[in-house]
């Protein structure tokens, strides 16, 4: 290949460079419209998701479907064929008709449709797109394909010309912007229409088109489809036709086109989205806002001056000032001084004093310092950081949105001060994520990739936030964000690396004259490989984060921005591969044998080995490795390093030839093959490590050997359906079989508070309409457990301790669990000799649930000893609360914390603290400790403890292989919950009880 070709392809690479700054290119990917128009380079078709060969007649069986086939197909698809014989017969008849249609279509459709010679620009500008639905004459969605195939194809063939014409017109001097906006909207709608018909055409060449009726399959929701699809991918022998069919159904849902009206709406949406969004007007009333802020300030001062307060005065007021600052500046000028109340004036005066003396009198949050240093082992605390991580930047609109919600939290969080002020010290992107989860009701069901959506496709909206939130939800969202924050950081760092690498690659054709010597060919190749690896890792992470199986095409993701990003990364990798080929002087040289790089799982139709690639290194290892490999090693291109590059180069080149990966057509296959490439690149490297010689080989070897959770599927946090199970710990992946959202889920999702607690004026205004999103489908049934189980487990532990053997972490958790049981036993003992209500379980000495006395009533308990009369076992809220708080206190090790704080002479409030009662101080410290952990209340912390225990039990009883030494002990503990135990099997991937069920049981 000559130099010309090299230049050409490099230019193509450069054309992908967006005009926006490099950082925001990678991260703050502009709204759909910009990325669409700017990154689709001519010559590189933005293709519709499916590019099947039109002549795939072989997929259609020769005979119309029999009833038996249909029934089996319905079973495969997870649907039910009517058992009514009359209806069945009708269904078979309909299927036969569909089959005939299919075969006719396949044989008679025109093969070589030519692009007509017309003025595309004029044609489309005058065309009413909704007419392409042929709504008035069609019998169903598919009939236009049969009746108007040639016409549709001809029209679609003209689309590229239309696009070119628009692009040219955009740059013309007297461009009619409005008309061109309309044209662009039309173009985008056209692409959607083309995709729509492509999908329909593809479906018609699939045997399931005949077998299944669209009426039935169309009813499935996106969630259901995705869950089933995931199941299909995990099967031993994949039904690829059914997979294709399901994927197309999902695409149809995502495209959202069905009739004339939908086309018109789509076009309208695109037109609207292209218009410059109006600058949102600030409609807030200046005086009201000042009053609100003054009120919050007054409340804060009052609580800080309370003699019981151990809060850091200066810090809290500073945070309040900082959060309110822009609004104070804006509104103070809008209200004349005469109209400002005295508290407003005080606020402004104090604020001005603060500004004049910034940093002068901030009191340290000594309590938090102590608490954080003594936090429970292995627990995460809210990170305190002002600045965003490297590689992450919030847009100004996002920053303002975050600030407004922060202000609202201060204003409404009088009783939640430690929690609020801890949250406001978290990094801005984490706050953004918290608010995103709440606004989208995802705090109980986050997906790893939600951070991506939060960063790129979300602007906080205060009114949406307040409508949806209550403090429990906020607490859950904070906890979820804490778990996702490391991943977000990695994403940021990786994005930054990618950006730098891309800069270097771009410099190949635009060398900076001041940059020193131009890179050698070997250096260029190494940089390109680096780019491939980095982007490959990113793609893998995003895929896993979105819960996509690696063989699934990227357009199965619902979030359009994420979808676009996946496609973009995918295409960029392809570009880099092409570039590499250009650079490689021995193009077409020795290929590695095909199976040298293909991991079994990305081969369509073969057994899916759930092989976690244990040898896969972390992304840090990759980039570190390449740092070392890059600069120094290639100064002197030693024989060894050059050989390595050759080996890697061959891997890249031969990758292009892999079957199941249609490089030429750019079909959006899954990234499984790219995974394979990334893996094999590194495998090549590792292999080479053992045989070749490299400078600094040792350092590299070490980095390669780093055990990583990077490329090993973030499977511990993501199930196939993308649900982030085990958010609160890192227990091994638990397949959730209950992710399906059934219609009845909605029942238990709305709180009934509504606006009942809103009273205008004086009384407490409650956040209205708190919505809770539950995903748990409780399977626990209260088979009364055998107390002996808990007893046995306890004895084993006691024996261990008596022998002075240290307890493992799991065993420690078990101990907590059992001690809780013991607590409950004590209460039970009081109930001996008691009248038993008939009909209810009478075996009082029998099993206990985690919360002991909440098991169905065993009887009336006389608790004279506790000074309370007529308390029923299991129904006293106060006792339950006390018990749970005790558990939480044990978890926090509160006694230790209280004594630390009391005895700390350097605490700014040392004198006041000495005067406080133990109970009051304990309560305050508990609140602070909970806040730093991201819990708004003890209930949430208790839930977390239950979750840890449940996951630990699940892990030990069902997952650990080989079985842990004290298996029986864990088994007994689990059975003391009183739930039927069924280990996971081939047919049922989830063990019973599931983690969720155990938690619910403990929480009831």
């Amino acid at each position, binding site marked *: 290949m000559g130099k010309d070709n090299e230049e050409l392809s490099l230019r193509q690479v450069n054309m992908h460079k967006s005009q926006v700054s490099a950082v925001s290119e990678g991260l703050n990917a502009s709204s759909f419209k910009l990325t669409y128009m700017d990154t689709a380079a001519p010559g590189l078709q933005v293709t519709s998701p499916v590019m099947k060969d039109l002549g795939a007649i072989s997929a259609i069986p020769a005979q119309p479907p029999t009833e038996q086939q249909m029934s089996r197909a319905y079973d495969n698809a997870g649907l039910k064929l009517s058992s009514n014989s009359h209806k069945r017969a009708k269904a078979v008849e309909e299927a036969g008709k569909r089959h005939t249609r299919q075969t006719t279509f396949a044989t008679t459709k025109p093969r070589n449709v030519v692009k007509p010679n017309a003025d595309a620009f004029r044609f489309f500008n005058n065309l009413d797109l909704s007419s392409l639905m042929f709504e008035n004459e069609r019998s169903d969605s598919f009939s236009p394909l049969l009746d108007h195939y040639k016409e549709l194809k001809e029209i679609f063939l003209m689309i590229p010309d239309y696009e070119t014409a628009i692009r040219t017109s955009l740059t013309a001097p007297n461009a009619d912007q409005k008309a061109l906006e309309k044209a662009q909207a039309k173009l985008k709608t056209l692409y959607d229409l083309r995709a729509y018909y492509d999908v329909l055409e593809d479906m018609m060449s699939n045997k399931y088109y005949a077998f299944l009726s669209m009426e039935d399959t169309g009813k499935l929701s996106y969630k259901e489809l995705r869950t089933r699809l995931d199941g299909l991918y995990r099967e031993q022998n994949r039904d690829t036709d059914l997979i294709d069919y399901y994927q197309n159904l999902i695409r149809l849902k995502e495209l959202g086109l069905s009739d004339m009206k939908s086309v018109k709406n789509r076009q309208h949406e695109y037109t609207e989205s292209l218009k410059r969004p109006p600058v949102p007007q600030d409609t807030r009333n200046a005086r009201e806002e000042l009053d609100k802020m003054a009120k919050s300030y007054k409340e804060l001062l009052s609580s800080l001056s309370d003699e019981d307060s151990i809060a850091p005065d200066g810090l809290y007021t500073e945070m309040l000032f900082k959060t309110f600052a822009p609004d104070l500046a804006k509104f103070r000028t809008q209200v004349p001084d005469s109209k400002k109340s005295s508290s407003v004036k005080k606020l402004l005066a104090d604020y001005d004093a603060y500004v004049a003396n910034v940093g002068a009198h901030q009191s340290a949050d000594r309590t938090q310092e102590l608490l954080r240093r003594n936090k429970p082992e292995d627990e995460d605390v809210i990170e305190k950081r002002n600045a965003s991580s490297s590689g992450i930047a919030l847009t100004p609109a996002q920053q303002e949105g975050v600030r407004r919600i922060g202000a609202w939290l201060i204003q409404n969080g009088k009783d*939640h001060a430690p929690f609020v002020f801890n949250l406001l010290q978290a990094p801005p992107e984490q706050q953004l994520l918290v608010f995103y989860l709440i606004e989208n009701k995802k705090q109980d069901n986050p997906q790893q990739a939600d951070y991506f959506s939060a960063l790129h496709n979300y602007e906080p909206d205060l009114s949406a936030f307040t409508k949806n939130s*209550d*403090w*429990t939800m906020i607490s859950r969202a904070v906890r979820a964000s804490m778990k996702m924050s490391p991943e977000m950081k990695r994403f940021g760092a990786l994005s930054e690396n990618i950006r730098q690498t891309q800069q270097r690659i771009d410099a190949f054709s635009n060398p900076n004259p001041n940059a020193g010597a131009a890179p050698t060919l070997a250096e260029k190749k190494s940089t390109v490989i680096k780019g491939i690896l980095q982007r490959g890792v990113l793609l893998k992470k995003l895929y896993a984060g979105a819960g996509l199986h690696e063989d699934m095409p990227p357009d199965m993701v619902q979030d359009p921005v994420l979808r676009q990003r996946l496609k973009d990364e995918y295409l960029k990798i392809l570009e880099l591969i092409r570039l590499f080929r250009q650079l490689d002087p021995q193009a077409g040289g020795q290929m590695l044998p095909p199976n040298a790089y293909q991991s079994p799982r990305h081969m369509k139709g073969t057994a899916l080995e759930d092989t976690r690639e244990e040898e896969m290194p972390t992304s840090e290892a990759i980039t570190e490795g390449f740092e070392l490999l890059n600069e120094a090693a290639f100064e002197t291109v030693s024989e060894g390093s050059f050989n390595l590059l050759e080996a890697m180069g061959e891997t890249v080149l031969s990758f292009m030839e892999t079957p199941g990966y249609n490089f030429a057509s750019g079909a959006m296959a899954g990234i499984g093959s790219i995974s394979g490439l990334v893996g094999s690149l590194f495998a090549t490297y590792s292999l080479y490590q053992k045989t070749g010689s490299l400078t600094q080989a040792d350092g590299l070897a070490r980095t390669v050997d780093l055990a990583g959770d990077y490329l090993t599927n973030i499977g511990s946090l993501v199930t196939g359906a993308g649900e982030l199970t085990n958010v609160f710990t890192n227990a091994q992946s638990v397949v959730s079989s209950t992710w399906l959202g*059934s219609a*009845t889920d*909605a*029942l*238990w999702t*709305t*709180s*009934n*508070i*509504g606006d*009942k*607690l809103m*009273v205008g004026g004086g*009384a*407490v205004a*409650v*956040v209205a309409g*708190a919505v*809770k999103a*539950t995903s*748990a*489908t*409780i*399977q626990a*049934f*209260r*088979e009364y457990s055998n107390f002996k189980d808990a007893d046995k487990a306890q004895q084993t532990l006691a024996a261990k301790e008596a022998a002075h053997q240290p307890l493992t972490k799991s065993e420690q958790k078990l101990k907590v669990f059992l001690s809780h049981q013991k607590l409950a036993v004590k209460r039970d003992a009081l109930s001996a000799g008691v009248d038993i*209500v008939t*009909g*209810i*379980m009478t075996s009082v000495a029998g099993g206990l649930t985690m919360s002991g006395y*909440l098991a*169905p*009533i065993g009887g*009336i308990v006389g608790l004279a000893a506790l000074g309370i009369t*007529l*308390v*029923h076992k*299991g*129904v*006293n*809220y*106060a*006792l*339950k*609360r006390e018990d749970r708080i005790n558990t939480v206190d044990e978890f926090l090790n509160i006694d230790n914390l209280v004594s630390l704080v009391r005895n700390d002479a350097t605490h700014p409030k040392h004198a006041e603290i000495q005067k406080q009662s133990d109970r009051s101080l304990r*309560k305050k410290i508990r*609140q602070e400790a909970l806040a730093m952990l991201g819990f708004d*209340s*003890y*209930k*949430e912390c208790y*839930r977390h403890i239950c979750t840890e225990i449940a996951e630990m039990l699940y892990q030990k009883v069902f997952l650990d292989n080989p079985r842990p030494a004290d298996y029986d002990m864990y088994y007994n503990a689990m059975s003391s919950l009183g739930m039927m135990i069924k280990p996971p099997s081939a047919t049922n991937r989830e063990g019973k009880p599931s983690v969720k069920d155990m938690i*619910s049981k403990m*929480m*009831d």
Partner: protein
Amino acid sequence: MNDPKRELLQALEDYYRSEGEPGEMSIFTADELGTTMDMFRMELAGFGSDGVSVLGEFFFMPFEEKGILYFSTVITLLSTVSIGLAPDIAAAVARLNYYLPCGCYALGNKDQNLIYRMTVPLTENRPLEELKKDIILAADTAIGAAEAYEGYLKRVILNELTVEEMINELTK
């Protein structure tokens, strides 16, 4: 006439605040609500097996019987029961109530509301401090009982459990 009742409701609010209950709470006067009685409303946050927020309402029944106060707790679990499910829920509720130690579940407002309610009679002619303790105890018991059994109802509503299965579990 309202005074002891108002004070008692206030004691209830003070109690829950001092216990650090995370939900919002407030006493509403009869005027504000357009009812005959004052009412203490509290958001029960983190309620039940899933940690939802439900509304708890605490008040005195407007009976005029001398010397006897009827303190009532109503906890609204659902306010959007779908019509088709009402018969199933009604059956489950009726059977479950049989075994409930105190209070009962009920369907109201044209079968749209699923609530738990409990009323306790209290002799008025006693020291205020004792009355306060009784009120608090009654409220705590109601909340505890409602929470302990809502899981069953939920599972019946979500079709994971038939009524018969539920009874089996309860009486094992």
